[in-house]
């Protein structure tokens, strides 16, 4: 993985000093609440329902075990013993004390981490496929490009006061595991006409109040032009994006208002002026960055049948929580952070330490975070899978539910977030209790449930196969249900099934939807395929039937 050099270390240390100074000025009354807000947000610090919340950047979801142990240390020393992994591969702490946040940042800096631009109207953490570098269908590893983008976007002088937040995701495989089509910019690694590597560029995707799938504004961008093209898009947006209405300020609204063609023309015009300037990346620099992410010296191992003679629990875990690796004899292991009764994405300090030890012993000394709030051990020899399962089981991280209904995405909701209209975590608990029969979940097949406590859509509800959105109705928590959304390669936005349902009815409503699915599915049809085939109507009729 990338290692800081003197410049990186210096920049992060100076950023910590700057934030310490800003915090002290606020605590001393020299900065008002309003003045401090944009400053703290640019360092990932929110003031939440109970306490400040600190969001720490996990660039493109890659962590060394040393970093994981530091995250555990922060949870113990400054928080209540746990952290929460987010839908953008970051980690949040929900209970730090404001005056201790500079110390947390200083601790993070010792392991080459920071919270720079994890909030605020600036370029946020760049996310990537959590199987980067190990996916068999990968065209190129997205992470070297993500790191180049991380550096370019960090404290970018021109783009720190954008109309609104700005999120970039990069994928290297045809399968989209980074929800790149619902990002402000989605970059898809592609091979060009002559075999050279570059990007398909999507702009203007996003969720929130106006969910939109990103539009392809360039079929192929040679990789050496990555930064100049990004700079052109950002400049057009910084100039022309709306600043009068926070709900109309994202780039998706600008693309819609200008029209795709006019927007593309504006970007191309700007790009023509800067494409061959100092922003041009040369192959030496790209290769230098790629070396940080070089594949392991893999052992030559055959694929083996690891399930023969093993207990059913292990076989179920193997089937649901491990994934194919590009190298024979290896698997990628999904570490489930979806334990029934625990908020999705939450992880205790003990689990972090235990996982770090395990990753050092049987994997590459690296851990990846996923956009659906789980973790990955990327490089596990198949012969070590049984021991891995045993150890993960002991840590409470082996619930064999990846990809099932129980593998929900969920924002912190009303329990923690001051923006939320309704709680999410209690609904997640209600659903996991209602659907506790794991064999039923396996029978339902791949099913993505995504839940947000408000319109801001941190839980990506629009692109859930089943989406759940918390709404406030005369001071009560109600939930609007959508079906048919997807954030994979064939992205689509879910359709609302009808009027929102009461809090206690959410799991029952899901049960009705799933009954319809089970009764009309053909052979191996998934829930999403059935919705796409038959539409919303049969589901709506069942859920709102007068006698249900």
């Amino acid at each position, binding site marked *: 993985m990338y290692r800081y050099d003197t410049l990186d270390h210096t*920049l992060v240390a100076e*950023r910590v000093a700057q934030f310490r100074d800003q915090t002290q000025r606020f605590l001393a009354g020299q900065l008002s609440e309003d003045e401090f807000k944009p400053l703290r947000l640019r360092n990932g610090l929110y003031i939440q329902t109970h306490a400040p919340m600190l969001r720490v950047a996990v660039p493109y979801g890659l962590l060394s075990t040393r970093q994981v142990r530091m995250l555990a240390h922060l949870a113990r020393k400054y928080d209540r013993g746990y952290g929460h992994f987010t839908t953008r591969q970051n980690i949040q702490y929900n209970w730090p004390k404001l005056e201790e946040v500079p110390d947390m940042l200083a601790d993070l800096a010792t392991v080459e981490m920071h919270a720079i631009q994890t909030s605020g109207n600036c370029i946020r953490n760049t996310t990537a496929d959590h199987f980067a570098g190990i996916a068999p269908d990968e065209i190129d590893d997205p992470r070297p490009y993500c790191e180049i983008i991380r*550096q370019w976007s960090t404290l970018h002088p*021109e*783009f720190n006061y954008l*109309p609104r937040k700005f999120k970039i995701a990069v994928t290297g495989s045809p399968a989209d595991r980074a929800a790149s089509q619902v990002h402000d910019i989605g970059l898809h690694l592609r091979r060009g006409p002559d075999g050279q590597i570059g990007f398909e560029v999507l702009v203007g995707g996003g969720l929130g109040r106006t969910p939109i799938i990103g539009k392809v504004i360039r079929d192929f961008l040679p990789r050496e032009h990555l930064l100049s093209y990004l700079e052109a898009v950002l*400049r057009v947006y910084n100039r022309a994006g709306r600043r009068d209405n926070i709900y109309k300020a994202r780039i998706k609204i600008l693309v819609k208002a200008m029209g795709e063609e006019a927007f593309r023309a504006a970007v191309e015009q700007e790009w023509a002026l800067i494409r061959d300037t*100092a922003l041009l990346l040369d192959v030496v620099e790209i290769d230098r960055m790629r070396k940080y992410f070089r594949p392991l010296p893999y052992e030559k191992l055959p694929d083996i049948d690891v399930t023969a003679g093993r207990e059913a629990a292990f076989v179920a875990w193997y089937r649901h929580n491990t994934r194919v690796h590009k190298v024979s004899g290896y698997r990628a292991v999904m570490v489930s952070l979806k334990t029934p009764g625990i908020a999705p994405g939450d992880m205790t300090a003990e689990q972090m330490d235990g996982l770090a030890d395990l990753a050092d012993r049987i994997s590459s000394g690296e851990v990846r975070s996923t956009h659906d709030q789980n973790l990955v051990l990327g490089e596990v020899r198949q012969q070590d899978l049984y021991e891995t399962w045993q150890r993960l089981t002991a840590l409470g991280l082996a619930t064999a539910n990846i990809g099932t209904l129980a593998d929900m995405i969920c924002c912190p909701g009303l329990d923690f977030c001051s923006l939320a209209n309704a709680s999410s975590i209690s609904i997640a608990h209600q659903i996991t209790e209602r659907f506790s029969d794991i064999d039923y979940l396996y029978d339902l097949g791949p099913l993505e449930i995504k839940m947000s406590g408000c319109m801001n859509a941190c839980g990506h509800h629009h692109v859930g196969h089943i989406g759940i959105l918390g709404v406030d109705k005369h001071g009560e928590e109600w939930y609007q249900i959508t079906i048919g959304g997807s954030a994979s390669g064939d992205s689509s936005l879910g359709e609302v099934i009808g009027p929102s349902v009461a809090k206690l009815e959410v799991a029952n409503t899901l049960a009705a939807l799933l009954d319809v699915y089970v009764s009309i599915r053909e052979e191996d049809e998934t829930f999403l395929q059935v919705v796409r085939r038959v539409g919303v109507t049969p589901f709506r009729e069942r859920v709102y039937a007068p006698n249900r």
Partner: protein
Amino acid sequence: MRQIVKHRQCQADAWSMPGEAAAAAGVVVSLADYLAVQAGTLASPAPAGAALGVQLEPADDEAQLLPFAAQLQLVVVNFPKSAEGRGYTQGRMLRERYGYCGELRAAGAVLLDQVFLLARCGFDAFDMAPGENLTLAAAELDRFSVAYQTVVGTVVQPHRRGQVG
């Protein structure tokens, strides 16, 4: 007299801003007025011997100043709100694209914690928001000793720093 930070020093401002009585040293007018004066359709409000400067608002297109970049001595970029970000682009373009070498001043709701990034966009003078300490603002120009981006005045191209050591 208005105090500003200019070339890292706190100093008195010799110019008058739009709406103020014309100063002897120089008079700043809106972009529309500046272009009208240049086109000969408006008499210059500057007294004899005084320079004429221009103030850009966020929606103004700084490219219109290209023909005058060599003769202009002062461009003021107004930030009506501290969250306003268009002026960062305006400043950078004036310096990098249009070759403007005169004073580039950020004015309006300019806060202490913004002068470093503004300076990286080419600003060399700061008419700070009311209540901001000018000495501290000048010190903020040294907040970071390193940066990743190649912008005006940067010698090393940082995203290629592997090559330069």
